[in-house]
């Protein structure tokens, strides 16, 4: 029988190692000047470097929670969430969230479908995403209507659509790129007009992607806090660092509370997934990220409002992400039956 205490310690060690790996990958390949390239284009490109994504997948990081029989690492959502937290911290423009959306949906599909699609996605050879088709009708195996915004939906090789309680693979899709305040993640809607589509399963559990996005936002909030604190230590006014004033240092402490609470909720939801935990973590991490990113700009003062400064990247990522999968108020409301 396994000792729970030591297995928890082992899991913590595995996750710490994974965290270090992803942090080093982002430091090597995606420092902020590199990330900024994604926001300096007209927005019609993939928004990320496909070769870098293949390299990331080559480290076994694209299919962490996918079973080994489909080429994945056979780990749990908790490990996938650790990776997300680090990617969020780096604001990494990589199709990680879209990949989790697609792979977690495919895992609930028929065995044949899983074997057909998962290995290529996990290896980084093909990209995939999932769009919510609340506005899409299904009639006689054909889709009509427009989906909500989905990450990487303009560039993904495979698009999955949730419509009318089922999971569909459409034969084709009109990709409609959408302008987002967040230049580090491309989003698009998919439009259908009587497009034939194959039903491959029931509507998937949205939980895993919600938890991964929650973790990503917790990581982003931590980076915004680190940026604010670093500046508060070096920026001097009235002859001393602004961080010597309680107005600033207590604000930083409050932001630390937001960051650690968000990280703790995301990690808890990833360890013990449930609809309740997913909704709570996503809503809370979104609130925390938006708040920390906003105060990060304030602590910087005027310089924080400039295009050249990186503070706005977090602010924009926070506000774009927190509504991407669900509205926070609806999530909080759902916690109280």
């Amino acid at each position: 029988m396994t000792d729970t205490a030591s297995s928890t310690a082992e899991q913590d060690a595995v996750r710490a190692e994974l965290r270090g790996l992803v942090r080093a990958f982002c430091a090597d390949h995606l420092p902020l000047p590199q990330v900024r390239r994604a926001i300096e284009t007209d927005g019609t490109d993939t928004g990320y470097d496909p070769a870098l994504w293949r390299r990331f997948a080559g480290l076994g990081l694209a299919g962490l929670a996918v079973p080994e029989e489909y080429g994945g690492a056979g780990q749990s959502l908790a490990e996938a969430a650790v990776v997300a937290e680090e990617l969020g911290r780096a604001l990494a423009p990589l199709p990680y969230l879209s990949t989790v959306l697609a792979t977690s949906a495919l895992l609930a599909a028929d065995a044949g479908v899983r074997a057909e699609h998962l290995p290529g996605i996990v290896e980084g050879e093909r990209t995939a995403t999932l769009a919510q088709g609340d506005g899409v009708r299904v009639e006689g195996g054909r889709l009509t209507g427009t989906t909500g915004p989905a990450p990487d939906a303009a560039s993904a090789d495979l698009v999955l659509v949730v419509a009318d309680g089922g999971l569909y693979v459409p034969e084709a899709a009109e990709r409609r790129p959408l302008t987002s305040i967040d230049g580090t993640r491309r989003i698009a809607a998919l439009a259908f007009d009587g497009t034939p589509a194959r039903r491959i399963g029931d509507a998937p559990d949205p939980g895993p992607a919600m938890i991964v996005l929650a973790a990503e936002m917790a990581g982003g909030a931590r980076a915004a806090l680190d940026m604010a604190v670093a500046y508060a230590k070096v920026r001097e006014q009235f002859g001393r660092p602004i961080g010597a004033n309680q107005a600033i240092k207590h604000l930083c402490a409050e932001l630390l509370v937001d960051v650690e609470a968000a990280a703790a909720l995301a990690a808890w939801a990833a360890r013990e997934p449930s609809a309740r935990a997913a909704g709570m973590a996503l809503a809370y991490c979104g609130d925390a990220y938006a708040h920390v990113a906003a105060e990060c700009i304030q602590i910087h003062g005027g310089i924080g409002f400039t295009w050249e400064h990186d503070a706005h990247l977090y602010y924009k990522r926070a506000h774009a992400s927190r509504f991407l999968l669900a509205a926070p108020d609806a999530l909080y409301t759902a916690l109280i039956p």
Partner: protein
Amino acid sequence: MTESPDAFEKRARAFLDAHLPPRPARTPSDRVALLEEIDPEREAGTLRAAKRWQGLLYDAGFAELDGERADAFAALLSRYDAPDLQPLLVGLHIVAPAIRAHGSDDLKRRYLRPLLRGELTACQLFSEPDAGSDLASVRTRAVRDGDSWVVTGQKVWSSGAHHADLGEALVRTDPDAPKHKGLTLLLVDMHAPGVEVRPLRQMTGGASFNEVFLSEVRVPDADRIGPLNGGWTAAITSLSSERAALGGTVDAVPPDLVERLAEQARRRGVLTPAARARLGRLDAALTAAAQVNRSAGLDPAAAASISKLLVNRALALAVEAASAVLGPSLAADLGDGDHAWAEFLLGAPALRIAGGTDEIQRTILAERHLGLPRDPR
């Protein structure tokens, strides 16, 4: 060698079945208090029951469990009508850890087991009228006399001092040293001559704390916790344990607070989507306060301060929710049974002060954990 979670649960369940009746169903007019108040009529019985229960827990090996087992045990325990351990908490979670970390072997041998078994109760004698947030400025003097110290001064905010056997006192032993370096921690016999305890009436109308007057109280040097003039470090251990005990267990908050507020709102027909969202936020803040203490890689001292601040954010949301739902019944006893919530409303301000004010927690987090410049001291 190690017991599986299932085997542990089975053993715990058998133990609880043998000693406790199941928990009775909750009623809307049950107490929702945040502070335990001193009640001379009931106190002796409560204390006796707590001591007996802690002894049983200790002897059966359920008194000091690690994280996951503690959670599993607490979850099981919530289904039973267990005696309230409140009168013992200072001894268990504040004084015993300080003795364990800093006490001599002799001190540990004499006091640790009796404290952990609940045979002895303890209180803290830290704050003074002029030493609150600036705790290191305490003035209570201890003067050496042979093998003893003679202690004189006034302490305040001492929970449980009226029934405590032992007091963990922070006293000044070197008035000429810098303020942090002239302090020593002594274990005072609360039954000794010269100790006078007076309950302190607070804004709720009740009393949860005491003032303690020490007049030439003799304390053997053998009852010193940690080195002479090294009391500040030992006191910090106690304060961190206190924060962990206060915030970590989120114990002060009624465990079913969210459900009870939702029930009240439902009964009154005001459980609107906006009200549900507000209660959902409260639910998330309370869950975060509990989960922060389980964060891998987060320093436990930081976690304790963060958890305390989260509990207080949650309480602010809860007070807002209670006001919105109960309205006038919160302000006055309208005979509907809901005025019990006034106790919650009136107790809430204390939690932002006790155990180190929220402002002190922010200073600690900013300086020790974020490395921001220190306040002038």
